[in-house]
């Protein structure tokens, strides 16, 4: 630990000691109740402080992983799309392209438990029980080759697990390693030999189109001139193919029954859409995310959005002619995993038939 941090911690301890209960208070607020503290104070420290009682094994974790995590992180933690890679990367930290995973980089297992338990799954956080979390963490250890498939993780053996990169971190040492080098009189003239350009940003073409609007009047062909448009700046990843003119997503086979949509129902559906939008986009400019784009979903073939990687059962259902009529959507949304075993959609479903009707009405309103 660097001197400055030691100093800081020492000072900190003193200050902490100097702030006893006798410090002046205003008597504001009220006592937090034990049940309230238990609900919110769930963070876990490296020494295991904060771990709930529980356990979970690798195989249980694998099932939970496939259900809750694989759609973003891959079946084996290899990552999907641009979502984080969880497993592998061993020995890559000095490479030009290091792969920073739980196994190769994370110093503490407590961090994995804490994060999975409090912040995952993305878009459906804080649903995992302690046992679920122990099981998923056990599976993450397994997928990183750190335990065997018969391993069970619990609050009892948790702190026995030492992460491979536990010694790989040290506190900020810039005060010693950099600040002295960068603290000096400024040079004003003849500060070095003449320079020339070595890199140019425009060689990479990674700046969003439309951002440098002043250049827009004579833009290269094929790019919309959106000079001055507030929504400029959209798009154009260097890694992504050039934005093709929006490919019509599979013409609707059965025309959605859009006439006579109840505006109140559509509005209610729009409110419920909050539950869907972390994975799905709909409407103009919608793109595939964790889930496929849903513009025009009502009335179209299942598994028909180009460029989206559907689960095998969903692809099969599409090939067999499943069409997302309001009735089929209603059954699916009531309990997705019961309707279609093996779907990647990690959503508990909408119990309330009225909610389902509203969401479907909203999707219908977004069909054009």
């Amino acid at each position: 630990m660097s001197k400055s941090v030691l100093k800081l911690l020492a000072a900190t301890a003193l200050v902490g000691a100097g702030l006893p209960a006798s410090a002046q208070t205003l008597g504001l607020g009220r006592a937090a109740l034990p049940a309230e503290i238990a609900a919110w104070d769930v963070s876990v420290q490296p020494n295991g402080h904060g771990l709930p009682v529980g356990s979970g094994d690798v195989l249980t974790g694998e099932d939970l992983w496939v259900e809750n995590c694989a759609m973003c992180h891959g079946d084996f933690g290899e990552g999907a799309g641009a979502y984080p890679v969880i497993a592998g990367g061993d020995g890559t930290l000095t490479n030009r392209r290091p792969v920073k995973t739980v196994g190769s980089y994370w110093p503490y297992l407590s961090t994995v438990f804490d994060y999975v338990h409090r912040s995952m799954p993305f878009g459906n956080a804080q649903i995992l029980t302690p046992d679920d979390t122990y099981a998923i963490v056990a599976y993450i250890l397994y997928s990183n080759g750190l335990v065997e498939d018969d391993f069970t993780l619990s609050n009892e053996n948790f702190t026995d697990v030492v992460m491979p990169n536990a010694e790989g971190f040290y506190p900020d040492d810039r005060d010693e390693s950099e600040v002295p080098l960068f603290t000096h009189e400024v040079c004003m003239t003849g500060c070095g030999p003449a320079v020339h350009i070595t890199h140019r940003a425009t060689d990479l073409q990674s700046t969003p189109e439309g951002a440098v609007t002043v250049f827009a009047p004579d833009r290269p062909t094929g790019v919309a001139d959106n000079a001055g448009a507030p929504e400029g700046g959209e798009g154009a990843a260097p890694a992504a193919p050039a934005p093709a003119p929006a490919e019509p997503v599979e013409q609707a086979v059965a025309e959605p029954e859009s006439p006579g949509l109840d505006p109140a129902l559509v509005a209610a559906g729009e409110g419920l859409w909050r539950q869907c939008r972390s994975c799905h986009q709909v409407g103009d400019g919608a793109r595939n995310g964790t889930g496929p784009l849903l513009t025009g979903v009502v009335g179209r073939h299942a598994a028909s959005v180009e460029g989206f990687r559907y689960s095998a059962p969903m692809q099969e259902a599409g090939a067999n002619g499943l069409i997302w009529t309001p009735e089929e959507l209603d059954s699916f949304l009531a309990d997705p995993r019961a309707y279609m075993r093996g779907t990647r959609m990690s959503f508990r479903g909408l119990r309330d038939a009225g909610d389902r009707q509203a969401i479907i009405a909203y999707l219908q309103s977004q069909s054009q």
Partner: protein
Amino acid sequence: MTDMSDDDMREPVGTSRRAFLRTAGLAAGGAVIGAAAGAQEADPLITEVQDWATMTGEGVDATPYGMPIRFEGDVVRRTVSWLTADPISSINFTPIHALDGTITPAGCAFERHHSGAIELSKDDYRLMITGLVDRPLVFTWEDLQRFPRENHVYFCECAANSGMEWGGAQLNGAQFTHGMIHNMEYSGIPLRLLLQEAGVKPEGTWVYVEGADASSNGRSIPMEKALDDVLVAFTANGEALRKEHGYPVRLVVPGWEGNMWVKWLRRIGVTDTAVESREETSKYTDLMPDGRARKWTWTMDPKSVITAPSPQKPILHGAGPLVITGLAWSGRGAVARVDVSLDGGVNWQEARIGTQGGRYALSRFYLEIDWDGAPMLLQSRVTDETGYVQPTKDQLREIRGLNSVYHNNGIQTWAVYENGAVENVEVGS
């Protein structure tokens, strides 16, 4: 004016650069728009009575809460979609190239969310203090209004600001290279007062601060800082925090990386160790060339950037009087001086400080020159009150290698061409 060789200014091979220069649409060295000098004909904008001088405009209350006039419609936050997997856990950038002064309007101050911007009302808001305290407490919004509060202007910079530039010049615009920053005036309660209210136990040496959103983003802060200048803030620039900035309550951690400025603050846990949360281990740590990583790199080092001219703000008026301006800041204190180079860092001149920011706040600098129309390699270099002089990117790379993501405070270079177009470049000798 510079030592840029002919080679640097050659017609490039790739279409991208050709397109860049062509589409710049700027006559070499010539004035393009708004040229008033030497007019041959009377300007009809002056000689003819315009509509706005005849008819009336909008009455009051046309926009009970006003937005910028439509002509400023391109002065907006922008994202870079390839940076992140999903716009819900993503970042966008402040249009610093188009702003002046030092205060960032909230409506265009950059956003960074880990699970999207949530709607949390004042009525539903609760703040809990837990852990190593004598009295674990719950506060409502109304409770918090009864504590003494302070007002301070501070910058908030994401640790990843300029992070895409480690491997070389990449994004073409100050908005994208340096726009993960904003500077606002906050009203809030010193965190110290809330901790006193709960009574920190002697073994409480850290606080863990956590948000109410689905990411429950949490960071550990040493007690010394928590008792020093951290604020529990409600307003920015005089009005309630915007949703995207943590309404109704966010933490303000002066001089330290933006990730620690927890939004929708719901819990302050007093602990005896750092929690070592995901955001302070797997992220916001700095991988060094030996494969080990620095952690707890909280301080934002001194940094500056010229905001105009810049790629999104080319020179449209040709040779003659030119205002060079930019921003400078330091997480180690106040800005002491800013120097500007026109030749890629060989020779420097001291800029004029237009707005002197306080500690951990932006300062605005200006350098007025008589541009001869020759190419330039513009740089700015800040020195803060501790004497720290902003390093070059290469100086940083010598120490940190190329695998860092965060804390790139290296000197930025803009190449200005004869036609007034500006490009993000790097230079070497």
